[in-house]
């Protein structure tokens, strides 16, 4: 036991926190403002902005998707469902041959099953999948968590730009495609 008994020190810690919470301005500005002093955020009224990399919900940039099935195959949970068919697209150059193009019919992600691991976003070779930090998409019915491709496409508007890297990084910064 030191000079001050531990019991008193403990009271000091809780009492000090009490004072710091009520008077966040400290001694200089002793105005009670617990809303500022508290660590918590009054959620529905006030929202913390998630970081740009936050894995909230998966957004689909439909134009880039070639229905290559890579994401559906790599998904550990088997929660991505893709259906598509081939169709003829007009030739790229005039006089060229009509191209074969994969048309996406269905792209569903079951967010009830999803583990938010990000493997699908990572393996996508055509930059069609992105993480959006949006997190408010809970549903009263579990079946509604199956987002179809139009819903997934809507999330694209919430996808932030990739953050620049810390000094010393040699990774190339990617770009989010314009909508």
């Amino acid at each position, binding site marked *: 036991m030191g000079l001050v008994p531990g019991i008193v020190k403990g009271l000091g810690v809780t009492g000090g926190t009490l004072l710091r919470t009520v008077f966040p301005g400290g001694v200089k500005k002793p105005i009670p403002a617990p809303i500022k002093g508290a660590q918590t955020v009054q959620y529905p009224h006030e929202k913390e902005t998630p970081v740009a990399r936050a894995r909230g919900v998966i957004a689909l940039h439909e134009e880039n998707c070639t*229905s290559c*099935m890579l994401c*559906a*195959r790599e*998904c550990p949970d*088997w*929660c*991505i*469902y*893709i*259906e*598509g*068919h*081939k*169709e*003829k697209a007009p030739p790229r150059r005039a006089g060229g041959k009509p191209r*074969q193009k*994969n048309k996406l019919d269905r792209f569903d992600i079951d967010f009830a099953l999803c583990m938010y691991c990000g493997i699908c976003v990572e393996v996508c070779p055509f930059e069609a999948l992105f993480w959006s930090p949006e997190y408010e998409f809970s549903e009263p019915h579990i079946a509604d968590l199956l987002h179809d491709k139009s819903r997934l496409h809507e999330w694209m508007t919430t996808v932030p730009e990739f953050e620049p890297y810390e000094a010393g990084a040699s990774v190339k910064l990617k770009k989010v495609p314009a909508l």
Partner: protein
Amino acid sequence: MSSADTTEEEAVPATDEAREQLLASITADLGEGVVGSHIRPGDDLWVRVDRDAWLDTARLLRTKLGFHYFSFISAIDWMPSPYGRSMDSRVDLVLEGVEAEEPQPIEQGVAGGDTRFQVFARVNNVVTNMGVTIKVDLPDDDLRVTTWVPVYPGANWHERECWEMFGIEFTGHPGLRHIYLPGAFEGNPMRKDYPLLARHVRPWPGIVDVEAMPGDDEVKS
């Protein structure tokens, strides 16, 4: 690593004297008991012992060689899984025209092996920071081995887990009861021939491919 480290890497000896010595002292004590061994220089040591020498190995390691720290006991079922990655069901394969494959031969890992089931345990010496993996082969018709509990009391739960997951009996164990699974559970889930139902009740979404346009079969890759 930086350049200094790469030179260090090259300096790692192809032979590992400390582990050679350790293996020698184990062999000296157990004699015929040691049936196989493997050393990865600078890294690890595997010793495969005879089933009768299993408990003696533990005693030797703990009392004479200072391996006080017990890491784990578990088992390996070396039979290749008849279900593969469980990605596609039998029905799909038949439709695709794939013939039912012959079961692949059993292939054991380092330090060799003769049988389908192998119990392996790992103990550490906290002073020399060396670990050793001990393996023992169990014949299919007699999945029994003596328990390590008298030497390493911590083996108790690991052996219970191993018993329920692989069906390997540890003779002399103070209470082989289910540890994870409910008491009435039947079967040994970690055996390779025990199907993982979650991967069978639902088709793999990755199995479908982009459908070709009608009358356009030749594009199908």
